[in-house]
């Protein structure tokens, strides 16, 4: 076996940090190995990939020192965010950018562009297609195509599917498995269900950037099982273990015979510009129900939430707690909304102020406010960060803050747009548990999600969307059964 990449006694420190991120860190990777690197956020997994490819310190200036360093001659790097790894607006131009860098003569470019697109299973009528119009999964596969154009010996993948829906995730991993067979592949990922068959070596890091375990996958998984749970890694049996450990009972809707209907839609349409984008014939949500809105990308799930939030033009009947929505002046009094990207929701400069914001708007007493905010800070584990700017929090903390700030007024209805997106298992369960508590107290939850496990273990009802229409309303258990039957037959 020949070594393709290795580090000996590497030390690295980010400016502004008190301690070294890596200290006397050594690692060696052989040609053809498929390596999975696991570790909690902040353990330096992405940084490690960048060091192994020489991006640090060549492109990203970070003080780094190593006794010995082997970097492969050719490598490719696939990043997390599909929107920030292209520099050209069109598909053909993007691959051509790589070919230009490699000084491939113009005459050969068209052939190569076709070839690499075909390798990742992308087939366009015209390669001159706008990247902006592609779905997230297609963008990631295009990114793989342009990485392949480098003809790399080693592929580095930094959570390439963290921002994709399940279908996109599946296709991207299939593509990676196809093209990566002959190559050395290093993967950083916390949703390991899809990759676990593909890799043969697993490296486990702790939060101080030290290697806790390094070896064949089965051995690491067996010996460090508790670490996986502790670090919130999405290992294949995580849901089953969670349910077992918590002695979980699938929630049942609480008796709501005497209560008002929370949301009632009838012949309800929404428009984007002048174009009808959504139609709901009839749908109801009651207090104590947890409704998951499911459907493919572009089926109109987020549009439904925006429409119910009065953010886009609508027509038809829409009652909130038996009041016509047009008569309600401040919808935010009744409904709270949690967006996909928590950052866009922050309007103040500190965690404390963020949670207190809507309470200030409703002119509560100063004392009641501080009591309530402190209570929320405690529930959402944000006490230590009271004075921190929301942007300086970690991804999981930001998400918790956005949920806390939205529901602080205890509005009777909560809308959520994929709140568990890109979160590790630990954070996901924490958020879900808190929502479940609210539901049990009678809050109505309507949540867009791709995660069938949430449907299975938390939802009471499912709204299925397809092509801008609400096509089916069923109980969560029925929905799961239908799916399972479909898989069997």
């Amino acid at each position: 076996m020949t070594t393709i990449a290795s580090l000996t006694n590497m030390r690295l420190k980010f400016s502004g940090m008190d301690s070294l991120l890596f200290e006397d860190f050594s690692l060696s990777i052989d040609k053809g190995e498929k390596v999975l690197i696991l570790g909690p956020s902040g353990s330096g997994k992405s940084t490690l990939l960048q060091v192994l490819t020489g991006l640090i310190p060549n492109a990203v200036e970070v003080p780094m020192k190593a006794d010995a360093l082997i970097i492969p001659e050719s490598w490719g790097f696939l990043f997390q965010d599909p929107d920030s790894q292209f520099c050209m607006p069109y598909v053909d131009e993007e691959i051509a950018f790589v070919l230009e860098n490699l000084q491939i003569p113009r005459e050969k470019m068209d052939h190569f562009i076709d070839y690499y697109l075909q390798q990742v299973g992308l087939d366009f009528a015209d390669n001159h297609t706008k990247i902006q119009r592609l779905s997230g999964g297609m963008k990631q596969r295009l990114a793989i195509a342009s990485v392949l154009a480098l003809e790399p010996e080693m592929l580095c993948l930094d959570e390439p599917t963290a921002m994709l829906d399940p279908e996109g995730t599946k296709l991207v991993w299939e593509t990676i498995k196809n093209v990566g067979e002959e190559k050395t592949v290093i993967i950083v990922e916390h949703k390991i269900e899809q990759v676990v068959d593909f890799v043969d070596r697993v490296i486990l890091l702790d939060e101080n950037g030290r290697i806790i375990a390094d070896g064949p996958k089965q051995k690491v998984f067996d010996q460090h099982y508790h670490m996986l749970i502790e670090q919130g890694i999405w290992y294949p049996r995580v849901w089953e273990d969670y349910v077992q450990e918590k002695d979980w009972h699938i929630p049942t809707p609480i008796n709501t015979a005497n209560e008002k209907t929370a949301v009632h839609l009838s012949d309800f349409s929404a428009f984007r510009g002048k174009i009808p984008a959504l139609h709901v014939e009839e749908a109801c949500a009651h207090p104590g129900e947890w409704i998951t809105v499911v459907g493919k990308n572009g089926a109109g799930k987020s549009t439904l939430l925006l429409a119910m939030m009065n953010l886009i033009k609508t027509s038809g009947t829409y009652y909130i707690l038996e009041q016509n929505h047009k008569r309600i002046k401040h919808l935010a009094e009744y409904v709270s909304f949690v967006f996909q990207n928590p950052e866009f929701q922050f309007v103040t400069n500190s965690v404390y102020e963020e949670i207190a914001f809507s309470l200030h708007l409703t002119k509560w007493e100063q004392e009641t406010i501080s009591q309530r905010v402190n209570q929320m800070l405690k529930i959402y584990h944000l006490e230590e960060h009271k004075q921190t700017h929301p942007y300086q929090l970690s991804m999981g903390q930001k998400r918790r803050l956005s949920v806390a700030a939205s529901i602080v007024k205890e509005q009777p209805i909560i809308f959520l747009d994929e709140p568990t997106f890109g979160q590790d298992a630990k954070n996901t369960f924490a958020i879900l548990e808190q929502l479940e508590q609210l539901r049990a107290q009678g809050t109505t939850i309507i949540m867009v999600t791709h995660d069938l496990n949430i449907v299975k273990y938390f939802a009471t009802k499912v709204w299925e969307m397809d092509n801008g229409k609400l096509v089916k309303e069923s109980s969560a258990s029925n929905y799961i059964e239908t799916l399972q039957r479909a898989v069997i037959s």
Partner: protein
Amino acid sequence: MPMDFSYKETWLHKINPSLKLLLMVLLFIHLLIIHNTNILINYMIGMLILYLFFTGHPWKRLLVISIPFLLIFLTSSTSMIFFGKGEITWAEWGLVHITEESFFRGLHLGFRGIIFAVLGIVFALTTRPVFLFYSLMQQLKLKPKYAYSFMAAIRLIPLMIEEMQTLHYALKVRGVHEEKGVKGFYNKLKSYSIPLLSQSIRRAYRIAVAMEAKRFSHPVNRTYFYRLGFSGFDVIFLCYLLVMIPLSYIIANHFPYFSITDVRYNK
């Protein structure tokens, strides 16, 4: 929110972008030394022909874009008409003092403003940024470092527009009421610009790293996916200008609209 900005390709699109840019700059400079309103009007007609018939964009879009032209015309001309110096008084109300000289100078400024705007917009409507930068690299030896950075930055604009929409929704959902006045504007500016900027800075940084990961800074002799040279369309454009400009002078001399041939004061 998908943005449709489709257009038909015309000969103006096929002109070499570097040449087009250079000619536009020369025209800008030339415009500054025309002081005869008659010439300027003819000149404007020549440019409007390009704008209205040869940009390949639909009529509706062209009309919408021309609304600000009118604004430019009105603001730049009226201030000169009302407050400019002159001897032959036409009307006077307090500070406002309209004279024959200031009237024509105002008109002249207004027309010049329109021509500047038309030239700029014709260039923008008929030039794909990607071609412009490829051409700048090939004809004017612009360093790839700068050219590709600009192209990557242009990609960020539609993403930012989308983010702004989301941000607008989010603020509404949080119950942020729009305040009026200067303070409201300041608060609005702050609540939009900081998240948008922080997101863009992070994006830009990531794109830069991604470009490096694609070996951007290595090559000495880049090859180019688009090779831009010169063609017959460049000649057509040059000829158009070479006919249009002398013609404006000749027509202005033989069939003037106004008797004033120099709008400058004291000349």
